């Protein structure tokens, strides 16, 4: 990728310097609330109650984290349990959606199945359907299926996501038919072709969808709010709210909890960023 350095702003002009300065200031501005979150999470109580308030922390402490784990321990459900719930439901949803959507997109684009072209057009229209609007019938379906107050209610409905199907489709359609045909001539069946050709060639789409799906599921508060009734099965976003409702005295713990919740998402993204950004870049197969 190094060779592909953009060259438009090659010469250093005052305008260019100004542009960089503005962009850096904007970047800092964008990051400020996150930085504030981090510093608040490490503030001791007396600094939280300081007047006038101060942005940065003077004597960082882990007190908030220990109080978060400690105070919640005294209740019935420990914080780690919520963490576990979030991890399990998110990992299952992500794995399922990647598999279901990639297989669906491949069969719609390349297997010449009767009706699948029309079907994939319907899916594109479904992009316009906002998820919250369909929550009522989904709730009824989930409850009829006996999945209420069960991890499954946070997992199964998250598999067939039109957007991921659509993204996969964009990628799969770029795989030349000749490649798939020659795989077939070499004796690969439908599943083997999918596993050996389609999946590797859509790897960057997969990374992108992993990131998107992880964010969506990890941060989802709507699902656990309506499907999950027992406290022990709730996920992190719900818990954050209840900690934050404790007022200023709990601010440190709330910030610590938010920090713990947000950090994995950011880490996963940083880890995947170059692949996400290169997603559409392996243009070798573009007809």
């Amino acid at each position, binding site marked *: 990728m190094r060779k592909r350095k953009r060259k438009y702003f090659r010469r250093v002009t005052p305008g260019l310097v100004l542009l960089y300065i503005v962009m850096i200031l904007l970047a800092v501005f964008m990051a400020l609330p996150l930085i504030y979150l981090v510093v608040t999470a490490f503030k001791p109580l007396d600094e939280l109650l300081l007047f006038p308030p101060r942005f940065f922390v003077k004597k960082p402490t882990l007190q908030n984290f220990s109080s978060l784990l400690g105070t919640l321990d005294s209740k019935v459900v420990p914080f780690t349990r919520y963490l576990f719930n979030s991890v399990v439901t998110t990992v299952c949803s992500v794995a399922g959606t990647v598999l279901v959507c990639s297989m669906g997109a491949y069969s719609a684009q390349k297997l010449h199945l009767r009706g699948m072209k029309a079907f994939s057009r319907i899916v594109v229209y479904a992009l316009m359907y906002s998820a919250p609007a369909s929550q009522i019938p989904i709730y009824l379906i989930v409850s009829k299926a006996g999945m209420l107050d069960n991890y499954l209610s946070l997992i199964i409905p998250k598999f067939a996501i039109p957007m991921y199907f659509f993204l996969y489709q964009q990628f799969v359609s770029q795989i030349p038919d000749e490649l798939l045909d020659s795989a077939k001539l070499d004796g690969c069946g439908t599943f083997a072709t999918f596993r050996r050709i389609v999946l590797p060639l859509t790897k960057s789409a997969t990374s992108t969808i992993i990131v998107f799906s992880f964010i969506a599921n990890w941060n989802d508060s709507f699902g656990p709010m309506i499907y999950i009734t027992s406290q022990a099965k709730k996920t992190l976003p719900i818990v954050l709210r209840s900690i934050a409702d404790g007022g*200023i005295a709990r601010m440190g713990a709330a910030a610590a909890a938010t920090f713990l919740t947000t950090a994995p998402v950011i880490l996963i993204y940083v880890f995947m960023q170059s692949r996400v950004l290169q997603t559409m870049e392996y243009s070798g197969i573009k007809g």
Partner: protein
Amino acid sequence: MNTPGATGRTGTVPGRVPKIRHGFFNTFRKDTAEGYLMAAPFVILFIVFVVVPVIWSLVLSLTSYNIIQPMKFIGLENFKELFTNDDLFIKAVKNTFSYAVVAGPLGFIASFLFAWIINQLKFRNSFALAFYAPSLTSGLAMSVVWLYLFSSDRYGLINDILIQLGFLSEPVQWTKDPKYIMKLIIFISLWTSMGTGFLTNLAGLNNIPKDMYEAGKIDGIRNKFQELWYITLPSVKPQLLFNSIMAMVGALGVFDITVGIAGFPSPDYAAHTMVGHMYDYAFLRFELGYASAISFLLFVLNFGLGRILMKIFSSKDE
């Protein structure tokens, strides 16, 4: 190799292997069966969790249903009630629109503009991370920070700074005064608007072949803005279409962040949105018929606007 769906089309493509007629039962071989098996999970789940809910919510919207009592068909009563008798719904529609017309287009434009600039800078990935990071957070989780920053008591940093700089003489109740709530929510949601659309744009922009710009120079393109207008924008049209739909759907579906900032219900219903109204009737009062009518209106709205966006950003004729 010739499967039923391809019949008729493959024959016209030059250079293809000549077609041998197999007959339906011969072509309906293992391949096809496997193909349908492969498609099945998505098709079934999509029908169960997307198609059926749309139809079901239309049916429900014509009924009075509260789970306990049997469903009763009441025709268009729910819609009539919504528009003639439910002031709160009208308020929710107004709030949703006042949010959507600002946050939707602004987010859409900003995510293209910044992707376009960042794509040409050094340290592209670092900039991208800084701009995208806010979208990685959940609105509800970060509301902890926002509430603290915009707090109206003496711990609020924003009020403190504005007072010290002389912009304010006394603290503003950002999250409690109906005058400011919606503005604050729009501001905060712009902060998270460099989301999926931003990434899609970055990738799309990076994928424009270099020679297109060089060819453009030969064809007489003088400056950056001509380049943007004649080369860049047409090249990312598919991405723009996708992003505009996402921005529209997201803006009309606003709810999460309003709960985080203003609570539910919000002071004087200043942040009451359509999805909020639906949520209230569906999951707090269990009047599912009435709530479904709201869902269905939302669906029609999304779909209608989506069609318009598809017309605007269509690249089919190219």
